[in-house]
């Protein structure tokens, strides 16, 4: 347990930004500036050193409660962190996205787990997988089948998860599983915190079309998980998941937007000027700014503890559109280079372009998000 009370920047965002800005500009962090490694696992391993450096200098402790080793503050501190990392030419990689998604739900629904484990995650020493999707439960999350049966003081988990981001290198899995009947749909779900080195856990990387192994499939064969590893109550899994999705959709959108702005600038530097280029770059920029203008408000609401709920789907959809707008601009404007060249910079554009394709698929397909807005924001009649 490091700190016992809020740090000096917990309630002073501008001061946090200034101090962080100075810190990230220091030569201590030069090793990570501009880094991009083809192999995802290697990249995350390398970047964890940077995360640790920032954490140990206390800046990485904001946005986490003191009970979990943090220095207080809220998600706006993360938003500032993402912006400043990008400004300093430093990478935002897998562990940042996972932390964005998982940290708040754990802190809120399982303070005892957060107290024990969250600091290591925040420090970059490890990261956790998010076990939601299954082969037969993709967009239709409520139909998931992975079972957890209470046996004495343990849940016995059997089943399969798919599309777990960085699952093959994660130390733990935040697992959404069925504790009720199959027909119970979203009512019979619970969330567990599971160690990936437990017997019966097998995790294999999945190679994506980009050639990168960003995802994993996880197999659970009678894995015994202590019942005190519940996140939230038994049967409360859907509520925890919905709480979590606000961060996965909205705060993550801010994080990606920060990266995308930088990538768009990089693209602008290499593409020859011209009317068409200007038009396409300008449109992508507008999409990004529209996203940011929206996102700044959503992040503020989340920071204030408000429930954003279904409205976070708008942030996610705006992100998907902006992401594809930036990388479609890259594909079109880099043209022949994009198609034929294999130099590292072009390979990166290519890999990122492939990733942008999946923005409208992962975490609930764009079609599902539109449905959420129609049904739960506009209150259109269910179909």
């Amino acid at each position: 347990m490091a700190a016992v009370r809020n740090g000096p920047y917990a309630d002073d965002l501008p001061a946090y930004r200034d101090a962080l800005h100075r810190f990230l500009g220091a030569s201590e962090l030069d090793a990570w500036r501009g880094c991009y490694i083809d192999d995802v696992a290697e990249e995350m391993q390398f970047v964890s050193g940077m995360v640790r450096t920032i954490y140990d200098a206390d800046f990485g402790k904001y946005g986490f409660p003191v009970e979990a080793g943090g220095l207080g503050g809220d998600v706006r501190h993360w938003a500032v962190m993402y912006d400043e990392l990008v400004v300093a030419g430093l990478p935002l990689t897998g562990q940042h996205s996972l932390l964005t998604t998982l940290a708040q739900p754990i802190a809120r629904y399982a303070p005892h787990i957060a107290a024990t484990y969250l600091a290591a995650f925040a420090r970059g020493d490890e990261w956790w997988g998010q076990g939601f999707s299954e082969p037969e439960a993709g967009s239709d999350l409520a139909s998931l089948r992975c079972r957890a049966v209470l046996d004495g003081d343990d849940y016995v988990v059997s089943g399969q998860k798919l599309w777990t981001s960085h699952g093959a290198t994660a130390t733990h899995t935040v697992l959404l599983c069925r504790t009720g009947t199959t027909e119970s749909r979203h009512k019979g779900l619970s969330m567990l915190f599971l160690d990936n080195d437990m017997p019966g856990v097998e995790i294999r990387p999945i190679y994506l079309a980009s050639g990168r192994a960003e995802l994993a499939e996880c197999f659970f064969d009678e894995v015994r998980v202590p019942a005190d590893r519940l996140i939230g109550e038994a049967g409360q899994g859907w509520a925890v998941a919905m709480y979590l999705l606000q961060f996965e959709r909205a705060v993550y959108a801010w994080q990606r937007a920060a990266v995308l702005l930088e990538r768009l600038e990089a693209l602008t530097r290499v593409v020859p000027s011209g009317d068409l280029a200007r038009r396409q770059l300008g449109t992508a920029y507008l999409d990004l700014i529209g996203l940011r203008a929206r996102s700044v408000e959503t992040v503020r609401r989340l920071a204030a503890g408000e429930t954003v709920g279904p409205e976070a789907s708008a942030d996610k959809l705006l992100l998907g559109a902006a992401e594809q707008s930036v990388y479609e601009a890259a594909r079109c404007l880099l043209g022949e280079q994009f198609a034929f060249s294999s130099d590292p910079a072009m390979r990166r554009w290519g890999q990122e372009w492939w990733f942008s394709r999946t923005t409208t698929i992962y975490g609930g397909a764009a079609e599902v998000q539109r449905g959420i807005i129609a049904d739960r924001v506009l209150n259109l009649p269910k179909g």
Partner: protein
Amino acid sequence: MQFRYDPVHEELALVVRRFLDETSTDAEVRDAMGSALGWDAATVKRLAGELGAFGLAVPAEHGGAGSGVTELGIVLREAGRALLCAPLLSAALGSALLLDVGTAAPEGLVARIAAGDAIVALATRATSSARQTEQGWRLAGSHEWVLDGHVADSFVVSATTEQRPALFLVDANDAGVSREPIETVDGTRRFVSVRLDDAAATVLADAGDAKAAVARSHDLALILLAAEQVGIAERCLAMATDYAKTREQFGRPIGQFQAVKHKLASVVLEVEAASAAVMYAAWIADHDTENVAEVARIAAYQANEASTLATSENIQIHGGIGATWEHPAHLYLRRATINRQLFGDPQAHLERLAKLIEERV
């Protein structure tokens, strides 16, 4: 992009909306469209008086409420929702420009605008030529599409003096001023083309000052029009959503069809992004005078996209009935069309933005 801390002005929006729900119904809008004046005089009087809408951003010492662009934007947004026929935009722009030039403006004029007793119309998109005579400045030139020029008491006119730009005030009743009403695609607003033929003028600002003042005025116009566009888009989204909930085809409300749901969800996205961009631009205009040009164009572009999509999809979702003269849908699309063009083409905004990015990298 920074985090803002201003409270949301929901109260102001509600007050204006309640007023317009009463005074700017479809029937009243159509009456105003058919009238010679272009608006209902009693409504405009209440708008200026009761609501103080014309002097909202005018400092108290000039008889205004001393609020800012944010508040003006909120009112314009409501005006867009209700297709309000009133010289509201002219009042906002005219008073802002006169305040900008400071003591060069006739004393008391801003207060009269704020009170709804005077209309000062902008003729700043084209440029007349000015020459100095023994009797003072004389302007010659023509200005198309001058908003609310038909009853303006005076015009703010851009003109060049020996190649240097300057800004003048011209009395609308001067013998050298002639104005002719023109018909546009939007019947909810009045435009005239103004011809100046040796019209007497007084200087408001000279050279660099004039150019900067006009640029600031146009930035403000873009933000306020963008706010109107968001209002138009929001209202069309609401109309289409309501219709989708009640109109039945194939034995169920059309809002049950995924095609309709997703279409409306796409409109939500555009409206949300535009609304956020407009609020941000207004906030910048109130807090940071340096970056207004960029955020104004971002807001304008986004709001134009949103209003174009929302007004079009509103017609598509209404089907045949939405394409009739009788239905209000086309009135929204028409007003949105004028709003898009009134202070520059959307393409021009995009290109200016792209150049700003290029310069930055």
